């Protein structure tokens, strides 16, 4: 049902964990839907230097979380903002149709983390 790439990211997730002193944290989903993704970013200048995730969810949820962290590391915030859920799914060689919506929220988590970072900076400034 899942592509090999999905299974690889699911079984060997990249950048799993937390960043205690993260510059931005994004959380999306809710337990009722069966998916919660939490994304932590560390930003230097305008660049995402480090990124980590924690996810409660199915195979697709975990794999997309892992993939988005790979896609985003080293990118500028503007570049990162262009990454969509579709980008993530494509990078994984696609997802089963039924998983396209609910379990494909990783880019949303990323955008939430960036927003969180911007808010925090704004309030500090």
């Amino acid at each position: 049902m899942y592509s090999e790439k999905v299974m690889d990211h699911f079984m060997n997730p990249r950048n799993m964990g937390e960043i205690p002193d993260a510059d931005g944290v994004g959380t999306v989903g809710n337990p009722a839907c069966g998916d919660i993704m939490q994304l932590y970013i560390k930003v230097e200048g305008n660049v995402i230097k480090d990124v980590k995730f924690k996810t409660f969810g199915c195979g697709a949820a975990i794999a997309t979380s892992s993939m988005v962290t790979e896609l985003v590391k080293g990118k500028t915030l503007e570049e990162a903002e262009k990454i969509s859920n579709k980008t993530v799914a494509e990078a994984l060689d696609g997802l089963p149709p039924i998983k396209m919506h609910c379990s494909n929220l990783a880019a949303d988590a990323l955008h939430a983390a960036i927003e969180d970072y911007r808010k925090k900076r704004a309030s500090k400034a």
Partner: protein
Amino acid sequence: MKRIYLDHNATTPVHPEVFEAMVPYLKDEWGNPSSIHWAAREPKKAIDSAREKVAALLGCEANEIVFTSCGSESNNFAIKGVADALRGKGNHIITTSVEHPSVLNTCKFMEREGWEVTFLPVDPYGMIDLDQLRDSITDKTILVSIMFANNETGTIFPVEEIGKITREKGVLFHCDAVQAVGKVPIDVKRLNIDLLSLSGHKLYAPKGVGALYVRRGVRITPLIHGGHQERNRRAGTENVAGIVALGKACEIAMRDMDEEVAHITRLRDKLEKGIMERIEHVKLNGHPTKRLPTTLNVSFMYIEGESILLNLDMKGVAASSGSACTSGSLEPSHVLMAMGVPPEIAHGSVRFSLGRDNTDEDIDYVLEILPPIVERLRSMSPLYAKVKG
């Protein structure tokens, strides 16, 4: 790779004796049983004999058995067929909120057709309240459809009491016994069951054959109109090989049930105990004792079921999360929801369902690989992080 199958509620392997019994009807005895020449003779006899074997397992007469193509057809046939035949008498059907989709969605369809349907709630063990059932029956009620045992949790319903109530109130009782046949002794006469569904592939016969017991005297409109097969109750050239297989499977079930159930119960209990001992934050779903010997449904809190299944599958272990039939859906199990299980815990449910070929080694292996899987997934889970503080 090791292959350990713990998903017998989804489907069972074809028993080698069943396979042997059906092969002749795919090779040399392919005749149409309705014909009046040599090619029909053996197939016709084989169907008659299979019908007797199914009837023997259920404690009814052979001509009270109608062969169908699956459990879902049997359930649709029972509900739509009785409703149509009795529509002069009333417009109310009672069922539960934890039925298999083939009952639940049929009842929802009936609602759309103008029928009134009561979906009885269940308690946290998945049990209905008999008083509530009794109170729900009105003079408009024509049918009560309640399953024998739940496919997801294994919870066994108080069928005998339900039969007493329905008989006393003079309404028909349909029982979806797809998961129970062959695992629990069933005597439809003693239990006052009027219609009972079963499905071949849940008891070591192949997919594509099922049956509906229809008590003599119960009026039912066919779901499939056409020729005279099955005494005008189900048209279509008979699936002879499938019917023979179902007959054989029922014969084997009768012969081996006691031994098999003892074996399966012991392994299931070992698995249950092992999981509870080795893993924290595990919740049993379903009734602790009134439960099919085959079934263990547990929620691993803070993680999600599919990701557990995928990990198990990578290690060769087949299990399921909710009914396989509903795996096309992303909703948490309607059964667990009806039992009041919070959605995030429902999402973390895994059903292990055992069968005759499972061994102690199978269970040992699962108990070995499962704790690290759960631990790894929990280490990824933002929910678990909170618990751990």
